[in-house]
């Protein structure tokens, strides 16, 4: 079957989709967006978390056909999504969001995957525009193997959107669907606190 939906602000068309495929599979294997991860494929680990019409979901549990006509945001589009949100709240610095229709084209996504770079001054991606939560994860040391990171970022960003001043218990509750095996979660807590603090300073 063919599935038409919007990914990171850009219309996408996936062809030859078998009806049993998940949204996760279509993103990773058909659209060249492997940022959403496949740690359990049974809805337990949260590594595949994406926003579906704004709601965080495990994309491994969403049948591809269910996203027809809907909007998906993945970790690959998180920086731009966060930038647009801050524009919408008037917190955007001039020009930060750009004015074109935005989104990530399939070609762009494949190019990143192929080269591991976005053409910044270094292949670490130093200088890449990041969402506040992404920068906070790096700065706080919340990334080790990084396999849980994309899902945690999407979930944490969504929580901060709803609850800009979370208590520790709020953070733990909001992220309790995202397993991490490396960090013991302490640096993830630090990262979310850091992002919240920076967000409130910038507001």
């Amino acid at each position, binding site marked *: 079957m063919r599935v038409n939906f919007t990914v990171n602000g850009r219309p996408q068309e996936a062809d030859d989709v078998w009806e049993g495929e998940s949204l996760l599979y279509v993103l990773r294997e058909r659209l060249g967006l*492997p940022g959403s991860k496949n740690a359990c494929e049974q809805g337990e680990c949260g590594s595949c978390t994406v926003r579906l019409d704004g709601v965080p979901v495990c994309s491994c549990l969403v049948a591809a056909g269910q996203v027809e006509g809907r909007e998906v945001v993945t970790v690959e589009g998180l920086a731009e999504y966060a930038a647009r949100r801050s524009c919408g709240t008037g917190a955007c610095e001039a020009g930060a969001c750009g004015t074109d229709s935005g989104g990530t084209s399939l070609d762009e996504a494949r190019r990143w995957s192929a080269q591991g770079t976005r053409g910044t001054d270094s292949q670490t991606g130093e200088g890449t525009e990041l969402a506040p939560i992404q920068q906070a994860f790096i700065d706080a040391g919340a990334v080790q193997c990084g396999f849980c990171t994309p899902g945690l970022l999407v979930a944490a960003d969504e929580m901060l959107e709803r609850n800009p001043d979370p208590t520790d218990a709020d953070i733990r509750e909001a992220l309790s669907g995202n397993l991490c095996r490396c960090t013991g979660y302490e640096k993830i807590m630090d990262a979310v606190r850091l992002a919240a603090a920076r967000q409130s300073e910038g507001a």
Partner: protein
Amino acid sequence: MGTTGLPTNITQGVRTKGGIGESTLRPDGTLKVTGEFAYSSDMWHEDMLWGHILRSTVAHANIVSIDTAEALATPGVYAVMTYDDLPTDVKNYGLEIQDTPVLAHGKVRHHGEPVAIVAADHPETARRAAAKIKVEYRELPVITDEASATAPDAILIHENRTDHHVGHVPHPNIVHRQPIVRGDVTEARERADFIVEGEYVFGMQDQAFLGPESGLAVPAQDGGVDLYIATQWLHSDLRQIAPVLGLPEDKVRMTLAGVGGAFGGREDLSMQIHACLLALRTGKPVKIVYNRFESFFGHVHRHPAKLHYEHGATRDGKLTHVKCRIVLDGGAYASASPAVVGNASSLGIGPYVVDDVDIEAIALYTNNPPCGAMRGFGAVQACFAYEAQMDKLADAVGMDRVEFRQRNAMAQGSLLPTGQVVDSPAPVAELLRRVKAMPLPPERQWESSEGADVRQLPGGLSNTTHGEGVVRGVGYAVGIKNVGFSEGFDDYSTARVRLEAVAGEPVVTVHTAMAEVGQGGVTVHAQIARTELGVTQVTIHPADTRVGSAGSTSASRQTYVTGGAVKNACELVREQVLERGRRKFGTYHPAWATAELLLEGGKVVTDAGEVLADLVDVLGDEAVELEREWRHRPTEPFDLRTGQGNGHVQYSFAAHRAVVEVDTELGLVKVIELACAQDVGKALNPLSVVGQIQGGTTQGLGVAVMEEIVVDPKTAKVKNPSFTDYLIPTILDTPTIPVDVLELADEHAPYGLRGIGEAPTLSSTPAVLAAIRNATGLELNRTPVRPEHLTGTA
């Protein structure tokens, strides 16, 4: 379009700098937070096929027949292979003992053993085709414990063993046995005023790394294969893969793809050979990605263990003797069992001074899932038991539990039961003092003006208590872990370092085969290169087999050994650069010949700080590059009869204090805090050090209260191969983990550092158990603790 997700150079230094001792951020951090970092399961190739493995549905059986016809006839299927299709006479592999069949031959020895492999144009097609393979099994009785393994009529799991352990084991269903005997326990027992005994059970833990076993094998024009893979040791894989494929090692070109955690579970091969076989058979790239269900069958686990301990002490609180027997269940194949036995025995009494010891450790062959390496590696199971014993004995003597440990703690100069002198700092008593001195978390933190916050109570959002029936407990534990490969293993690493001028800037490229599995080795390599060569820009080359072996990313060894190799190679590069400088510029300034010269800030400077030349001018157009192996001090095997010998390189010590709250009515545990103090020698990257300690602590917490692979003793089948039924700690289960880092340099190690990754996994578990015992008054001799053990309904 070719392949996407190929590993590439990662360069750091434009914005992020930092030498050793600084909390430099990860060079791959931005790639990992943007979703661009390519893990092994993200690899993609045009026209690639998907591989799938058919696994045994029973644990022990003869295979009567395998019929692949229907699977092969399925549209979209390109190949189906069984044992009969293996291309050479080498059909087994293994880390130390080559006892593991690539595909089952006539017999399966554990639930989930690979029987056949399929390649198809869609993963679901491959799965469905595999399900059409008809395997007829004739089931055999299952061997699941020591009694059934060593019974007079026990079926031999492996007939006709020829490995080098078979000569000294008491039964062919025992992989390896290591006794360690020193002093005279019988005589020492006479001096004991108090003797305590205990029988302990340690459940089977899974590494549960999040990135599933996966990789991409691409057949090459020259008849070889390029394999992109998540592993802990590329060269160990290569040594096992190439003979099965019938290829020379230089035709199996391996590159490390992104690794989503490891913790020991990637030390053995998983899908590597299967993907290569299918790629060479079909002539097409083949990708294999396990799902979580398969991952539970696709790698070895931590050995479950039964441990019997007897400890004695005098009235004034000095240990007289320890006698113990540790039975590890290695499952169907040897994997790392012999080395796990070596660790469990040699570290079997913990970081304490005891002159009279009688230790025996064995690993069994059974039909349970194969067990091998997991963070802590044999030392974990022993620590759980000896720390429970230390509490029991302290109580018997009537002494404070921490003070009792301190009174018997080893220090620099102490002897291990193996007779080896601990010749670097061993601040065991100090770590206990520090962890005890940390402020305790306030009582009843869950109380607020709006009532109880159930998220902070046992049972959490299940809303099972608002504080009624909740009791607090505190427990302590300390442990000792060896660093590096022991028992005479040639534990070396290799580094290739290149220094060149690029666009007017000096740039270092570090190329090793070290598996970055998340620990931050790549961060540390860049830091070492900056410190040694005075540059800011460092490029980390992808790890592959085009450079010499780095050894395994395990045993807490990579910062020590590959870090040591990078440091050594940088020092040799520096010598060559300075020699070039002397040739080019020596006549201009006498200091070139007389002063101690350093590389700092991109310049050659004297030790007095005088600048002699720009590094780029010394380098000119010609790079300096070299590759060197590096070794730490050699070790020696343990004597097979007495266990005596200088078997270890270095030790790592950590202590924990656990604070728990237990809902005694429902048997639910909430760990409130897990404080840790650890000696790290020298923290090359303090941020990463603390991250390792917190992560290791949490894995210890998991096996204390929730993590266990449950194997049916009647069938040897795994009952809970999913994250629904095998629980690992969530962020709600995990407490705050304050960390106190001590830095007492080990003069034998690069920069004085100490391998740190595993020690916190040891003492975390017994500290939590001790706290639960303290809260409930129950004996609790097994881990993990389940609610029924606390409510008396087990």
